[in-house]
């Protein structure tokens, strides 16, 4: 179905791009997306943890279990 293709092409496109991942708890993780699967499990590089908009921690690599993810956000690529 065509409606699903938008999602799968998005998933393919965002590899290696900077993303913001928001968890249900409200915590934001900003980093470079290394890997993403169908469970929304995520591997991030150069991760920064923002709690209430304030930088709290930095991690080189981070794995986020998909059940905690509210959304994955990217800025639109401009050519």
């Amino acid at each position, binding site marked *: 179905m065509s409606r699903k293709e938008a*999602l799968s092409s998005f998933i393919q496109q965002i590899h290696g791009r900077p993303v913001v991942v928001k968890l249900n708890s409200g915590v934001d993780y900003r980093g470079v997306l290394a890997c993403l699967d169908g469970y929304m499990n995520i591997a991030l590089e150069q991760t920064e943890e923002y709690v209430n908009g304030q930088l709290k921690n930095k991690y080189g690599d981070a794995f986020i279990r998909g059940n905690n993810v509210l959304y994955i956000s990217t800025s639109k690529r401009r050519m």
Partner: protein
Amino acid sequence: MSQPLPNPNTLLPLELVDKCIGSRIHIIMKNDKEMVGTLQGFDDFVNMLLDDVTEYESTPEGRKITKLDQILLNGNNIAMLVPGGEMPGDSYEGQ
């Protein structure tokens, strides 16, 4: 066994969402959050791909607004979808 639909005019719920692709949609989440964005696609779990999103979060201090370019929204916390809906009272800027 697949039973035939009672009426060919019947629209399945997800077909209604399918009709919204490309237009604005208002998403009400389970936990005091709402999203308004342009629907680009969704899957069987109703995970949604949205463009030009505004996230409204009602907090004790007021409404917190976040603008996002493009998001893949997890369907797990979605409660309701309102086609074509802009946020009611959009002129109100909480906080």
